[in-house]
């Protein structure tokens, strides 16, 4: 140790300091690209307040409600079909993508399929499907099925890769066939996680089903986009409120399904659990 150098309790962390400087420089540069000016901000505030005042009260007239119900119904139908189909396809694809169970020549095609499905946003995929099968719900279903495969199959494969090989070994040792090993040795280990992915995907599909209408793939998104373009902001507000309510109901349902399957809760237990002390309950209600 050099004799005179004083001891430093907190040595300067140069990589971190340089990192922060680079980040700050980037933020300045990137913000400049947005061409965000003071005038724009002021007129924005102005626009914003006008916009908000035109949103309220939301338009819930009889004709509007009819359009909302029709749009939401279609979104819901797209969600149901796409989720069931997507999950049904994700199971085998996810299984094929698990490196600990499958040979490489099965894994790589499955992984490529998943990577491609994951890379594109549902709305982009919807555009392609609109081109392939025309405007309407069919295109939306196709887009959401692709999205479901990208998410559920990927996480399912990862969950399978993390299972305990010992339990699988024991089932193999009984002379069970490959499918039986999967059913008794693999699936029980990943089932509750899979359920989590599947119900999450249901929620996610429900959200996206309300958006893909923007590119003509069915559901309430088309109505919403049209209302925006007509500056019909009170109708926009009504549609948004309805969408949020639908999504929250969806989340409650998927929480229930998760509890039903993974924890084998009975209805009474579920309600009992849903009624903890007051504070927790309030939080739980907000969380949906």
């Amino acid at each position: 140790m050099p004799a005179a150098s004083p001891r430093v309790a907190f040595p300067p962390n140069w990589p971190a300091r340089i990192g922060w400087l680079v980040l700050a420089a980037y933020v300045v540069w990137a913000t400049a690209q947005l061409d965000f000016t003071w005038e724009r901000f002021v007129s924005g505030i102005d626009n914003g307040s006008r916009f908000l005042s035109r949103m309220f009260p939301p338009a819930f007239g009889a004709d509007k409600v009819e359009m909302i119900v029709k749009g939401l119904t279609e979104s819901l139908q797209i969600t149901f079909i796409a989720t069931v189909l997507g999950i049904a396809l994700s199971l085998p694809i996810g299984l094929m993508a698990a490196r600990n169970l499958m040979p490489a020549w099965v894994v790589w095609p499955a992984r490529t399929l998943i990577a491609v499905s994951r890379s594109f946003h549902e709305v982009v995929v919807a555009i392609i499907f609109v081109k392939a099968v025309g405007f309407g719900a069919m295109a939306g279903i196709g887009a959401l099925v692709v999205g479901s495969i990208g998410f559920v199959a990927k996480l399912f494969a990862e969950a399978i890769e993390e299972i305990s090989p010992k339990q699988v070994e024991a089932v193999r040792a009984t002379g069970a066939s490959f499918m039986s090993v999967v059913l008794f040795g693999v699936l029980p280990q990943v089932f509750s996680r899979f359920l989590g992915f599947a119900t999450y995907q249901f929620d996610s599909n429900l959200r996206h089903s309300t958006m893909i209408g923007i590119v003509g793939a069915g559901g309430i998104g088309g109505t919403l986009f049209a209302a925006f373009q007509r500056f019909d902001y009170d109708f926009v507000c009504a549609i948004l409120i309805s969408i949020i309510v639908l999504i929250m109901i969806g989340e409650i349902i998927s929480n229930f399904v998760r509890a039903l399957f993974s924890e084998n809760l009975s209805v009474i237990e579920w309600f009992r659990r849903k009624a903890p002390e007051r504070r927790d309950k309030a939080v739980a209600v907000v969380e949906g």
Partner: protein
Amino acid sequence: MSAQPGMAAAEREWKRFTPEQRFLRFGFFFFVVAAVVWSLKTIQVIPEFLYDAPEQVKDFFERMWPMDTAYYAKSVHAALIETLNIATLGTLLCMVFALPIGMMAARNLVPFWPLNVFAKFLLVATRSVNTLVWALLFIAIFGPGALAGTLAIAFRSIGFVGKLFGEALEEAQKGPIEALTATGAPKASVFIKGYWPQVMPAFWSIALFRWDINVRESAVLGLVGAGGIGMAMDAAMNLFRWDQVAVVLATVFVVVIIAEVVVTVIRKRLI
């Protein structure tokens, strides 16, 4: 072989589930089947379009190939940089909001339930509105362009980052915090020296994860006019230049894969 030592036990039934569980499960499957049947019946399926689909797809790919690679330098590159800026700035901006709201939502940090509920309400509200809707709202306020896109990404992400950050805070170990509180440290110091070191890796990891998602999301913002690579795609589609659309799609694919790899590598080093 004497596998059965002649037990006279009455025949015992073995059932996997209790009757109630079975009823609920049956009810669930019945509901799923009914919902799908109902959906299939009422949804507008135009068979002619379906028969046509393979041909349309073939036609589609033929128009896409060969790609108009010159389009990349002409429009896509600038739009791509804009997309990455939207995603990055949006994520950074989101963190500015998500940090305090997430803290407010953590019950161990803020032991005052109305604030917890308020914070959770904010988080749910921002998550429930889709990025594209946020984009449409901000376009209505600030006009089309990357600014609206950045704000849309930021606002949609607050709920996601804030929720996960709040949960990470709630899972923080009590020991170090009690030790600090016992020294009489002020609350801010307890947070900086007690909570923050525990949740910092989680916080950055959540932010990176969201950035990865935002790269994907910011690619579609352009379809509603909120800047980025989606604008280039929209322009090409309006002209039916599928060979240019193909360039955009290929670019998005490559960038998304790279972003995912980058995030995975950084997260591994963080944790």
